[in-house]
């Protein structure tokens, strides 16, 4: 059976793994440590799809009803 890419589903928002520079910039912008970010489990379907490792930071872009898009960042953690 062909595997279905969950990221293609219309209800799954866009997930992107940030590179180190972007993470650096993000932490600077909010004046936070990496551990202050909201978490996302390593076994989350989208994380598995992206092959993200614990410690990676994801950028999640959701469509919003009031603003065009709502951007969130999450750090991948062990369950």
């Amino acid at each position, binding site marked *: 059976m062909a595997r279905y890419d969950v990221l293609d589903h219309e209800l799954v928002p866009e997930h992107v793994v940030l590179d180190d520079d972007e993470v650096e910039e993000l932490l600077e912008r*909010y004046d*936070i440590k990496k551990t*202050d970010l*909201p978490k996302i489990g390593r076994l989350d379907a989208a994380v598995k799809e992206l092959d993200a490792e614990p410690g990676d930071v994801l950028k999640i872009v959701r469509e919003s009803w*009031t603003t065009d898009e709502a951007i969130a960042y999450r750090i991948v953690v062990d369950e």
Partner: protein
Amino acid sequence: MSQRTTPKTIETIEFGLMSPEEYRNMSVTKIITADTYDDDGFPIDMGLMDPRLGVIDPGLQCKTCGKRSGRCEGHFGHIELAAPVVHPGFSKLIRRLLRGTCHDCARLLLDDSQQEEYREKLETARELEEDVSDVMKSAIRSARKAGTCPHCEAEQKDVKHDKPTTYYEDGQKLMPSDIRDRFERIPDDDLRVLGINADRARPEWMILTVLPVPPVTARPSITLDSGQRSEDDLTHKLVDIIRINQRFMENREAGSPQLIIEDLWELLQYHVTTFVDNEISGTPPAHHRSGRPLKTLSQRLKGKEGRFRGSLSGKRVNFSSRTVISPDPTISVNEVGVPEEIAKEMTLKVKVTENNIEEIVEYVRRGPEDHPGANYVKREDGRRLKVKDKNAEALAERMLTPEGAGPMAGEGDEEEEEAGASDDDADPQGLGWTVERHLTDGDVVLFNRQPSLHRMSMMAHEVVVMPYKTFRLNTTVCPPYNADFDGDEMNMHVVQSEEALAEAEVLMKVQEHILSPRFGGPIIGAIQDHISGTYLLTHEEELFDESQALDLLRKTSVTELPEADEEIDGDEHWYGDTVFSLLLPDGLDMEFESSAGDTVVIEDGELLEGTIDEDAVGSFVGEIVETVAKIYGMDRTARFIDDVSSLAIRSIMHFGFSFGISDEDLPEEAREEIDVGIEEAEEEVERLIETYERGELESLPGRSLEETLEMKIMQALGKARDSAGEIAEQYLEDDNPGVVMADSGARGSMLNLTQMAGCVGQQAVRGERINRGYENRTLSHFKEDDLSADARGFVRHSYKEGLEPREFFFHAMGGREGLVDTAVRTSKSGYLQRRLINALQELEAQYDGTVRNSENDIVQFEYGEDGTDPMKMPDGDAVDVDAIADRVLDADEAPAGGDD
């Protein structure tokens, strides 16, 4: 006055167990006798009330610290227990340690590699701030799996725990002394694997050999009117412990049989257990002589009235009052009527300065009985004097007397004072004093009604002092407080500091809460008769002559009439719409649909067409209120609401409005029509049942035959009631007060009218027709399996006609379900809300737009993920670009000044 010290930050808090040695070191005396006072009423040395344990009687000095009652916080004593007992608070941890350690060598049942593994797991858990006890639990779990000890190869036996404090190993009871011996032998390093820091908490300390005795200040005895002393529950419990402790020692010394010793040991364990917690399952609670269960240590902390929720998170406060509320449509939404009696009791502290001394002295002069007076003055040297009728005048004079002129020191109340030859340059003595003056008109207070479910449950109002004994509020603030006047009581708090006053005025004023943050619409607006009033005023084209029009407007802020709309026989007349338009801000443009169904058009602050009803000015939905609030600001909105409610009340009084039984009267032919409709429906039901019985009924997709039948019957009967409603509606006149109320949205609905005048309809329990009661039937009046309309709770009569007994019973069944539902819902949602608030209370929107908790973790990167304030959103959208553009363009065309 306590001196303020430099604030310090708490770096770390460490929790641990106390060792018996620590208990002894902090103890000021050993307690050996269970007696409290001797025959002369003096406390016995080394008794439970030993004077070294602190002072509770006023005037006495503490034998330990020398401080007096109130200042001495008390000192612990201790009891040397004859035998060790288990501390009931640690029974679970004790069980875990017994199961995880070797029966023989007392080492942790994990080999070195496993120990290392758990040490690492602990480290990561600490780093990630996860629950360390989870690691311990899993370590114990794997330790238990070992059949033999990896260190000494001893075979391990199963440990059973008989709650709360008995342990068996291999069927053999483990005495607390055995447990203690074993715990003493557990190496520190093995404990570290379990996350226990042996420096702070040796496990054997969980078995008590010394019991600390709380200071008397923690268990004060009270002297009854009869002169008899009544001891605190804790003291009672300690008496029990000491008695058993003594008996235990005596029996052991006398060499009593082991059986008796064990019984006494168990008894001692019971008393210590209940001393710590008297609500432990598996242990019968200890009772007072009167039969009431004792309130011991745990009970003081736990629950709603406990130390945390009752004394620390919430406590009773000064400067507050509570009384019944009643309505007063003549005061503004921003005001509250305060009974004079309360105004005289509640005070505000005012500092006397050059600028206010004249005014403040007047308050003092009037004394405590004459309303805008004062109750206390505080002199510059810190002495607080009560203002009495007798000394009011003298105090006032003294305040005005220049410094050094009169005798300053006079403390006596009767002292007469003469404003002696004054040095004009000297300041009056009163400068720098503080006067506690009565509450007066215009003071800002906080007003609250429980349950305080949202921020609108506590708002700031301006005081209006009034006669009689109730708080008065404008009826338009009922919705935010969810108040009515069937005996509701509300609380008032007088704000004491300038900072608090400023915050209250800026943030908490009623007018700042007209728009609800929940849905962005107005939560304050016209209700009930206000809506009927504006409806009557604007629905039909009503004409008013000058005196009538002025009468309508007399309580509003409008003082002048515009040009007349009509001239009849030389008299000027105005339409209701014109009168209402006077309240609207200039330049307001709106168009929306009213509850009555017509289109309301407002142009440049003129009501051109449409009815003003609930959708225009009502609370929760009022379009005009919302628009005025969002465009013209809160001051204007408060005025608008005040004006609308005053005009509406004048208007409803002008027309007259009442609703009675006869307003539900329907003509004979209407009654007949309704009956025909119901009979047809009943026949339809019979037909459906027959089809079903013949087996010819076709089931709907996804339903069984029975369900299909039920649905079709429900539909038929529902239709019958609806048609009854339509007929009733048809025959009730448009000016029928019930119809006016339903139409305008003031109160009630067409369904209510249908049920009153036409037919009550099907009663339901759990969303189904009534089908429970007797076997296969609802009541013994019916045959079994009767599916007909009247056997299953269809009420064909109207409330006005009255219900048949069977109908009445079914109606009561449906009604009861509603009652139970509300009762269950409120308790469930209350608890849910409590948990939600506890979870969210520390979240805060930061200046960078993020929402963070107290540990600075980010919860949302943008408040609400869109950064919009619902109170400022026009009708659900973040921005209404068109409306703004229209407004800006309009303003450009006619650069008119602001409203008025």
